[in-house]
Structures are given as structure tokens and as C-alpha cells.
């Protein structure tokens, strides 16, 4: 551990990821900043196309440099990753930072045993022998709760159930004790009872190893369960950030508020219609001007001079809490808090 507590472990500043396509430039991520300290979980919420996965692939350096323009700074433990040589990134990936993907079946090779795949990562990064890496794979499988790990280490992915595959992938990600774990919708493809098992497992492992976790999901319920801090993304930008309890209880941005209001709960009223957000997510080829949420925002007209359509609202973060919206604090209190209390 080289960094002190005051210095974030991962610091992303003004990150821009643009893809050139035949139709034009897709601004998938457009000016995103956040920090993450060790042992904490940052939940990134957003809908499809909001840029959550693109951000994390950029952190890992997994974008194709020929078609992607990455701008801004990504500092991991004081080391700049944007523009770092591929060799260095290769060393860091799997060793210091690792990723868990949504679809475990597609992310595992069908032709190799689980043990070989976990062991390979370990051998590559530590230079361990085959026997050592096999022992390590068994140990990891045991750690993630796979029964009879010494037998299952020789199984192929198709012999595992969905939950077990996800566990195996977590084992593979954690085999070199990474300090940063990026989990991209790791539970979306799983049933709720298995999802609960996997989230408990991630929490246990984090407590044990002090890993910093970025947890990407579209499910605010999952965020409420696992995250410490929440970052809400919309149209490639962060619209709101803050500690989990504050974001969920007193959302500041109309989008967060709309998301919370549109979800039915297990004990809410049933005979009233839900409050959907009108319209659909923006195209990032041709994003709306000003605030990207303004065409769908119920409160845009409350802001004078049509500022929402003209001027990009700045994200001001004070003590880790803030949102990018032109509404004044009073307006926010009036429109957002009242109804949020009613809905929950």
C-alpha cells in the first residue's frame, strides 16, 4: 500500500471516450470524473448506452486504439493509465485490476477446464509452476464457494450452472489479489436467489482483501444493496453522485428521481399507474444540446430562459455529493423531495 488515505486509489478526471463511426463521432463518454478509495464500492447506474461499460473498458485499456479517442486522465494508485504502453497495461490487468463480465458463459473458454483458465492468469503474472497454479485455482474455487473444488477444478464451463460460472469468473478475477475489481452487471443474467449469493460473496471478499470495487448495474435495488457511493450516468455524463443513502433518499437530479419513481416496489401502492420517464434515452451520435436529459425532463420548463436546452449544467461536487442540474436548491426541495417521500 503506497498511497495514503487522502489520496484516492483510482482517480478519473474529465474522461472522454469517442468512437469514430461511419455515421459520425459517438461521444460514448463525455467528460466524466470520479474518485474511488480502497475497500469501497462505487456503484455506477445508468441505462443501456449511458456509457457505463465504455468507461470501465477505458480504465482497463481494452478499447481498440485505432477507432477510439480517449481523452482525460485515469490514475490508478498514482500511475497514469491513459496512454500507458500496452505492455504495462497487460501487466496491470489481472494483477492490479481485474474485471468480471455479465455473461460468464461467453467469457470463459469452452475448450479449457475451469482450473486451467484460472491457473493461466496466475502463471502469467507470477511465473508459478503448473502444479502451483493448479493448487491456487483449487484454493480460489474453494474461496468463492464452489463445492468439492478439487474435483470441480477439472470441469469445463458447460458443466457448471450459471451461478457457479459466475463464481468461477470471480475466482479468475481475484486469483492475483487485484486491488481494483470492475464488475460489469455481474448478476444481471442470474436469478434473484443466486444474485443474492453472488453479492454476498463480493461483499465478503471485499471485507477480506480490501479491494476497491466498481459495480456497474442498471438496477437501483442492487446498488442499494452493495454500493457505498453511487454515480448516476446519463448520455455519457455523470448527472449525480453521492453516498448511497443520500442519492436514494434525496435524489437531486430529475433523472435519478424519475428512475426511483418509475420502479414498482414490493410494498408500494398497486392501483396507481407508475410514473415513467417519458421519451427514450438519447442517441449519442447526435446528443441533445445543453443538459442531455432536458427533452425528457419534467422540470426543464421551471428553469428560466430555456437554459436547460442551451447550457450544459456543471457537476459541482461538494464533499462527494452533487448533481449536474440547473434547478435551484429550493426548486429541488419543492419538486423532488416531496414526491420521493410519497413514492417510498
Amino acid at each position: 500500500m503506497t498511497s495514503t488515505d487522502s489520496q484516492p486509489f483510482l482517480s478519473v478526471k474529465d474522461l472522454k471516450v469517442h468512437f469514430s463511426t461511419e455515421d459520425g463521432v459517438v461521444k460514448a463518454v463525455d467528460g466524466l470524473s470520479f474518485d474511488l478509495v480502497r475497500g469501497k464500492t462505487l456503484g455506477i447506474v445508468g441505462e443501456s448506452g449511458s456509457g457505463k461499460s465504455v468507461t470501465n473498458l477505458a480504465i482497463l485499456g481494452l478499447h481498440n486504439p485505432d477507432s477510439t479517442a480517449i481523452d482525460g486522465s485515469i490514475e490508478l494508485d498514482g500511475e497514469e493509465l491513459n496512454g500507458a504502453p500496452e505492455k504495462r497495461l497487460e501487466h496491470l490487468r489481472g494483477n492490479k485490476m481485474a474485471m468480471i463480465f455479465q455473461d460468464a458463459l461467453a467469457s470463459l473458454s469452452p475448450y479449457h477446464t475451469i482450473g486451467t483458465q484460472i491457473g493461466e492468469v496466475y502463471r502469467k503474472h507470477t511465473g508459478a509452476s503448473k502444479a502451483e497454479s493448479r493448487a491456487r485455482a483449487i484454493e480460489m474455487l474453494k474461496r468463492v464457494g464452489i463445492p468439492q473444488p478439487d474435483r470441480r477444478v477439472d470441469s469445463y464451463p458447460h458443466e457448471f450452472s450459471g451461478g457457479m460460472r459466475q463464481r468461477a469468473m470471480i475466482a479468475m478475477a481475484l486469483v492475483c489479489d487485484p486491488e481494483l475489481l470492475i464488475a460489469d452487471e455481474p448478476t444481471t443474467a442470474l436469478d434473484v436467489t443466486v444474485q443474492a449469493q453472488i453479492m454476498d460473496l463480493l461483499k465478503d471478499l471485499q471485507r477480506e482483501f480490501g479491494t476497491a470495487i466498481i459495480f456497474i448495474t442498471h438496477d437501483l435495488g442492487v446498488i442499494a444493496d452493495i454500493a457505498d457511493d453511487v454515480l448516476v450516468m446519463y448520455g455519457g455524463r455523470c448527472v449525480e453522485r453521492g453516498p448511497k443513502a443520500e442519492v436514494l433518499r434525496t435524489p437531486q437530479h430529475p433523472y435519478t428521481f424519475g428512475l426511483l419513481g418509475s420502479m414498482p416496489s414490493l410494498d408500494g401502492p398497486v392501483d396507481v399507474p407508475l410514473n415513467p420517464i417519458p421519451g427514450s434515452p438519447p442517441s449519442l451520435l447526435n446528443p441533445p444540446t445543453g443538459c442531455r436529459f432536458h427533452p425528457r425532463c419534467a422540470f426543464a420548463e421551471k428553469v428560466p430562459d430555456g437554459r436547460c436546452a442551451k447550457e450544459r449544467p456543471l457537476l459541482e461536487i461538494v464533499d462527494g455529493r452533487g448533481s449536474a442540474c440547473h434547478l435551484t436548491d429550493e426548486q429541488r426541495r419543492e419538486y423532488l423531495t416531496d414526491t420521493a417521500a410519497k413514492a417510498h
Partner: protein
Amino acid sequence: MSDTTPLLDVSGLTKHFPIKGGFPIRRTVGAVQAVDGLDFQVAEGESLGLVGESGCGKSTTGRLITRLLEPTAGTITYRGQDISHANRKELAPIRSEIQMIFQDPYASLNPRHTVGKIISGPMEINGINPPGGREKRVRELLEIVGLNPEHYNRFPHEFSGGQRQRIGVARALALEPKLIVADEPVSALDVSIQAQVVNLLQKVQRELGIAFVFIAHDLAIVRHFSQRVAVMYLGKIVEIGDREDLYDNPRHPYTRALLSAVPEATVDEEPRERIRLTGDVPSPINPPSGCRFRTRCWKATEKCATEAPPLVQAEGNKPGHLTACHYPETEPTIPAPRLSKDPEAAA
């Protein structure tokens, strides 16, 4: 249950998919018991929710009701007529009354057909000529589902996921059905769009008095949409009842575990009851004897392994609230997690 005939009456419904052996003689070597003895009714204008995890047989049930599949055993009675083994010709008039909405709005619309052709397709097949012509009717339908009638000549790729699902709804409404089977109609959509489609379906259900079988894995959405809910596990209904009874007073251990596993977007001062099930759902090829949930149940005894619990009104249940368990839960909530988190203990 009222004493009038229900719109749909399903009794002992069973579907086993045979598994064929290898070369050279493809003998039947086993069966996937996807659905095994379901009994339920759907009244006119009512919405019944089917929930459960993947592989529990909820989609197969939907396909049996719409007779896209033929049941292995049991009967499906639609408006007093047994359709379990009806042939194509006999089914023709019924097919127009039972429609389906699919999960994937990208796969369920023909990309080479215009919206107008897609929605008027069912009318064309059934030779229905509404007054004023099919095009007028399609424009009306587009209006009902909240799309611009001007979009008549557009193709599916010009629409977003939520809009495509609306097209699917319009197509299902084209023949004025009495029953719609909706198989995960919103799970492929973004969170902010899901509510739009749920509201649309609810509007359709109320205003047109259409009965729904609403299949989903999202318990909160099912509760919002369906007056009655059936919980399935490995091809069987383990609990069925009015939503208030089922969600507020779940009696089957599996229902409890399922409800407690749903993450909710609230930050509670006091943590909710949490039951952590260990292990995975067993294979439907070789389901456990007796109660199928017993391998993951913390209450299981010898009796559970030998005797399958019938789906009955457990003591203390309201009428219509049926539970298939030898030891239904009695306390309103279970306090602490009762299950060991160590999967090896269970293995």
C-alpha cells in the same frame, strides 16, 4: 373463485420434453419435466402473474396455454371448450382470442415488414375486415398504444425498444383478444421505459377488459400488474393467491426466500428479513422426490422427501390462497438469516 365458468381453466397440466439418446438408435432416454401438474384458473378480465426463476416452467406454461405446444397430460379448457389436444382447424377461432406478447421486441417483429403490415397481419390471416378497412384499424391501434398513426409505413428498425414493444402490443390487440399471454414483456427494456409499457398494458387490461397471464421474474412488477400471483418452482406451483395475501403473508418457504432476495432501492434503517438459499435449482430431468424444493429448504424432513405436498389452503390462509408445503410458515416474518452461507455445509 366465483361459480361462473372461468375464462381459462387449467388442470393437471403437464409437459415433458423427451430426451433422445445418441447414435444409432435415438431412443427416448429421459424427459425434461418442464411443467408437472399445474392447476389454475383465470377469470375474465383478470390478470394472473406467473413468477419463478429460470427453468421453473413459466414460459412453457405460457406456450401451452396459447397451444404453441401440446401438453403431455392434463387439460386446458378455454371458455368451456377443451383445447388441450385440439388440431389446427379447431384452434383457428380460438387463436384469435388468445394472443401473445413476447419478451424480445427485436426478435419478435419481422424487420422486412412495415409496422402497418405487422399489425394488420393477424387480421389478414384470420380474414377479418373491420369497418373502414384494415389500415384505419391499424391507425386506431397505433393510437391506443401511444404511437403516432403516421408511422404506419415505417419499419421496425426505426423504432426504439420501448416503441417496438408497443408495436407488439398493438399486434396482440388487433383481433380484440379475450386473453393475452405476456411472456416477460418488459424485462428486455430499460428501467425508465419499463414503467411506460407496464402502464400501457394496465390501461389496455382495464379499458378493454382483457384477461392476462403475465409471466415475469421481477416480483415487484408482477405485484404491480397482477391481481393474483402464482409462484412456480421446478415445474410446479408452490403457492398461489391474491397478491396482498401472497406478498404480505407468504406461507411457502420458497416464496419467502424469493421475496427476501429481491433487492429494493430503499435504504432501510432496519435490514429486511433475508433468507439466503444455498445451491442452485436442481435439474428438471431428475427432479428431487417428494417436494421439489426440499434440497434447498431449511425445513425439509423425511416426509418432504417421500410425499409431494399438495397445493391446498393451508391453515390460516384466506380462501383462494393455496400453498404446497408440509410445514407452511406461520410467523409473519423470519428474523435472522437461518441458512449457513457456507455452501460446503449444504453440499
